[in-house]
């Protein structure tokens, strides 16, 4: 046994350098390891996740949203839903939490270079693809046309308006927003995300689609994208399953023959197509 393998289960202490209240139910924690040596060797790819530990309560899987080039601070945007995340919401700048990671396989960023990219998100599940958008924004010249499509149930669920506004300013970028139910303050499309697909700018021969959100929504997107001529090998998605260990041991995230924690969370649609619409897996 190498010392490193024992460490895989062991969190490291990290300090909350900044806490941002994004919306009533969403916070961003910007974290830095207290041990500079740990911080120095920490590296990740867009789409990977960490296990965050709240003292005395437990661990949760949270995607990394910051850019891999910024090795100093690791950002996590967390939706407040249950036991652990409610506790995390009460933390303040300067407080400590545990962090182990990074885990999983991220987005195929290298394969996507020089390709048009379509990023589709549904509901509040946009954290795993924010890293993709940030990554492309930082290296804009390496990628083709960038499409960002976000759908929400109700316009009130929409967060990060400023971020979308900034993304809209990026060169060669299309941002499309849709809400099933709108309100007076919703200037964008009212209806389904998929209604907007006619406005996307991409070459179906080579575009890469990266999506995350509820599986039902992703299923519909996949269908549309395939109809538009995109090959299953160019469709990528991030999945969520109950996670306890993040190491491929505990069995909770099993998806057919795969473990979402180590074979995913990002999968090529080709890999998961046979089970994707079967309820119960």
């Amino acid at each position, binding site marked *: *046994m190498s010392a490193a*393998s*024992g*460490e*895989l*289960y*062991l*969190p*490291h*202490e990290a300090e909350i350098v900044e806490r941002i209240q994004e919306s009533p139910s969403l916070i961003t924690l910007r974290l830095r390891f*207290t041990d500079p040596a740990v911080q120095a060797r920490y590296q990740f790819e867009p789409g990977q996740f960490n296990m965050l*530990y709240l*003292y*005395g*309560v*437990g*661990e949760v899987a949270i995607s990394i949203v910051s850019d891999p080039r910024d090795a100093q601070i690791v950002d996590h945007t967390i939706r407040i*839903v*249950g036991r652990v995340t409610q506790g995390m919401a009460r933390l303040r700048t300067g*407080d*400590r*939490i*545990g962090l182990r990671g990074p885990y999983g396989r991220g987005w195929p960023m290298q394969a996507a270079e020089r390709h048009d990219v379509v990023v589709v998100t549904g509901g509040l599940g946009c954290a795993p693809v924010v890293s993709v958008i940030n990554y492309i924004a930082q290296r804009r010249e390496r990628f083709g046309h960038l499409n960002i499509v976000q759908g929400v149930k109700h316009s009130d669920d929409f967060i990060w308006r400023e971020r979308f506004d900034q993304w809209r300013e990026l060169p060669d970028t299309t941002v499309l927003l849709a809400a099933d139910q709108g309100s007076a303050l919703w200037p964008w499309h009212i209806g389904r995300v998929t209604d907007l697909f006619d406005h996307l700018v991409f070459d179906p021969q080579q575009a890469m689609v990266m999506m995350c959100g509820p599986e039902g929504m992703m299923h519909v997107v996949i269908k549309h994208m395939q109809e538009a001529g995109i090959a299953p090998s160019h469709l990528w998605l991030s999945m*969520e*399953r*109950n996670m*306890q*260990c993040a*190491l*491929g*041991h*505990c*069995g*909770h995230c*099993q998806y*057919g*023959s795969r473990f979402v924690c*180590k074979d995913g969370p990002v999968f090529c649609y080709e890999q998961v197509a*046979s089970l994707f619409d*079967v*309820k*119960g*897996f």
Partner: protein
Amino acid sequence: MNQDVGFLAHNELQSLLDVLQGAGYRCIGPMVRDGAIVFDELSSVTALPQGIRDRQRPGEYRLTETDSPRYFAWANGPQALKPLVFAPQESLWSCERDAQGTMRFTITQPDHRPTAVLGVRACDLAALYIHDQHFLQQAYPDPYYLARRQQMLLVAVNCTHPADTCFCASTGDGPQARYGYDLVLTEQDDGFVLEAHSDLGKQQMQALPLQPVTQHQLQQVEADMQQSARVQQRRLPSRNLNQALFANLHHPRWAEVAERCLSCGNCTSVCPTCFCHTSTETPAISGELSIHQREWDSCFTPGHSYIHGLTLRADTAKRYRQWLTHKLGSWHDQYGRSGCVGCGRCVTWCPVGIDITEEAAAICGQPAEQGAST
């Protein structure tokens, strides 16, 4: 005399324990407790289940006393090796937090006393090999499992008395122990044919009061093994059901078995290859220490598939399907073989007697049983 084989008379069995203990091993072996054969610390052969027979049927396990001189005239109990390497509950690490909120994480060092296990069956060795693949032979080897596994000496027993629920011959894992052990015993009425299969086993053997083994005794071992395979009634329809199961995800039988299944998870806790576990956190009253543990879990519990706001497998049909398609199906993709070693425990210990061979046959469309004479 071939130094790897010898005969150990019944009245010399204690010398095996003595030798192992003398070499620094804590000995674990089978014994009767609460009406079942369990594995626990063993210092004297008098604690072994001598003369005990087991009668196993779907949903039924019963021990009877006989005047047979044999120590291993039974098939298996609810557990053997799994709890010894993959603990039912254990601490992984702890976190100390001081008044300033500073945290210090410490790995729990696993207990790894050298342990010798006496009476391990072929099915349990096969299951151990599967667990080795899962916990050790991948990107992230599990240090807690490894520490215990590395210190194990295994004394196998070739199974001469399979239960009515056993089907290891059909999965190819028994009744004869073929790999993964140090010593193996085949019991006869007056003692054991003992063979060594590792250097460690050979070393232990040198100190034992062995007699030369006769040709007749060796032939008897062969005959007993053939007989043990022959008497097994149950079988799986095929050794690789991966495609057949995934082609039948909407078979009506899933709903039928769910009518009987209680989602109690007994089958998963007695199964020697099930590895699911969950993490738990135990904060000390003082508020300065919290212990992070793991404990066995089952895909039959609602929490297993819970993601916020949604239980992916809310009903028993989906849970039973998850269990069976994994165990007999997708396990092949993960570890190159079925996750079932034919020990029959899930059949015996299911409170309503659900039989995995029968369900697999119904779903994959082939008969579960073959006549005893074939």
